[in-house]
């Protein structure tokens, strides 16, 4: 079993082969699925906890504060302590709420984000499943989360929750378009929807450089639209703390609230990793054409570091947005989408198609 931090293909394949040799195919598949599920669950917990900590530190530094610094060195165990607190809290029962939907909603939200992570390539040969239409699949799956949000708002029997849920519905349905279209711009350039090939094609240069102006515009639009899709500030209208107290999860407590909370951060991670994969070259190192020595040094950095570095950069950008801008109003939110982002996006695809046709990209 060859373990290579630059190429995981042989590693994953050897595990696969070993399982199929030991067990009948059905059981091998089952065991494989269980292993992958457990690995992702663990990954989920770690990333979620880390992101909450990172957000609190980032916003603290932007606000001239220190941030969490009591639990462990530099407060690194703060989120674990918070998580334990949330686990032990009472699950408040809401009078006249739709009990089934109320209980199911957090799971829908978290399952939607859980499904999306399966298609993301972390490094060469390190992804759970490599669809032919990976980008399409991710777009489809991430938009499922809004059902959970809508159900949560509806079933809580709270007017604030309902307003939040309705806002969230209008918001995600609109911004879904921009996310899809901005990714489509890159699909036009790449000619494929398969994540592994999208990354492979960027070995000669990231798409944001290859597709220059339209790719950059698409990247900016994707950042804006995906921030809106993950319900983060300045688009956090579904929560809108100062208007709707906590929006759709006003009535949730304890671990159910933790699910919503975790799903928000995981959605942010997924969106950031899509941005990193599609625009910033995924796990591909940074290369400058002609600088052989420089490129060689860049190749030496393992792909996982590249991947997580780029994702962290995009996440940091999104946190920067949230902690700088005031919140939009619901009609302005829709104006931004339908009057600005969508037309620009459509023109942008045309330009991209023209550039690809004329071969003006790098």
């Amino acid at each position, binding site marked *: 079993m060859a373990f290579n931090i630059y190429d995981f293909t042989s590693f994953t394949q050897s595990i696969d082969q070993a399982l199929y040799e030991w067990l009948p195919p059905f059981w091998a598949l089952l065991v494989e699925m269980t292993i992958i599920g457990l690995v992702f669950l663990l990954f989920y917990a770690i990333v979620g906890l880390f992101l909450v900590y990172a957000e609190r530190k*980032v916003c603290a*530094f*932007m*606000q*001239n*504060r*220190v941030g969490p*610094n009591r639990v462990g060195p530099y407060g690194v165990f703060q989120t674990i302590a918070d998580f334990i607190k949330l686990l032990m809290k009472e699950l408040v029962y809401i009078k006249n709420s739709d009990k089934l939907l109320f209980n199911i909603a957090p799971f829908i939200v978290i399952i939607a984000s859980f499904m999306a992570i399966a298609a993301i390539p972390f490094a060469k040969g390190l992804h759970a499943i490599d669809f032919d239409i990976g980008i399409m699949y991710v777009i489809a799956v991430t938009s499922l989360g809004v059902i959970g949000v809508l159900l949560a708002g509806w079933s809580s029997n709270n007017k604030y929750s309902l307003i939040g849920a309705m806002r969230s519905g209008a918001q995600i349905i609109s911004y879904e378009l921009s996310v899809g279209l901005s990714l489509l711009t890159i699909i036009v350039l790449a000619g494929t929807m398969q994540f592994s090939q999208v990354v492979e094609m960027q070995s000669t240069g990231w798409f944001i450089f290859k597709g220059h102006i339209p790719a950059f515009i698409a990247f900016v639009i994707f950042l804006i639209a995906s921030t809106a899709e993950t319900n983060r500030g300045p688009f956090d209208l579904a929560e809108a703390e100062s208007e709707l107290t906590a929006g759709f999860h006003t009535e949730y407590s304890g671990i159910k609230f933790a699910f919503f909370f975790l799903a928000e951060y995981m959605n942010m991670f997924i969106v950031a990793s899509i941005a990193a994969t599609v625009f910033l070259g995924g796990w591909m190192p940074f290369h400058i054409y002609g600088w052989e020595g420089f490129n060689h040094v860049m190749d030496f950095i393992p792909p996982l570091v590249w991947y997580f570095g780029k994702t962290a950069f995009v996440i940091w950008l999104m946190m*920067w*947005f949230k*902690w*700088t*801008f005031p919140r939009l109003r619901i009609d302005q939110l829709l104006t931004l989408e339908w009057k*600005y982002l969508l037309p620009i996006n459509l023109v942008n695809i045309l330009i991209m198609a023209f550039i690809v046709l004329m071969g003006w990209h790098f």
Partner: protein
Amino acid sequence: MNSFTKYFTDIFWGFRSLLIGMSVTGRYFFSPGQIVTQQYPENRKKLKMFERFKGDLIMPHDEHNQHRCTGCGICETNCPNGSIEVISDRIELPDGKKKRIIDKHIYHLSMCTFCSLCVKTCPSEALDWDQTFEHAVFDRTKLTKILNKPGSSIIKDIE
């Protein structure tokens, strides 16, 4: 045509204003030297309150365990919310005169609004402010304090 150019200038100025805003937060993010948070319980030793800080009412005693309070009760009448009770006593001096001395100067910290009227109006300047500020206790009876120390007496020349 006018609305067409306006569309794009709007986008340009909008983005510009957003980037200006981001430059402010970004600058603070990269300059951790500007953090203003005080690490409170850790800096307890270094933490020095301003000398005029109104933390707690005290009655200063000198090295002979003597204070300046005559027990006249002006602070009690001036206190707007009854947080001071002066219980005075009368003793007979050797020359036969009767003199009022203080028995207990009771101060309810829990009722005090720190308006400083007692300190200002005291004719013999017997009261002062202390700079302690950690007033949390588990039992509220501890917030009722007797300001004159046991066995203390008044400084001679104060009438």
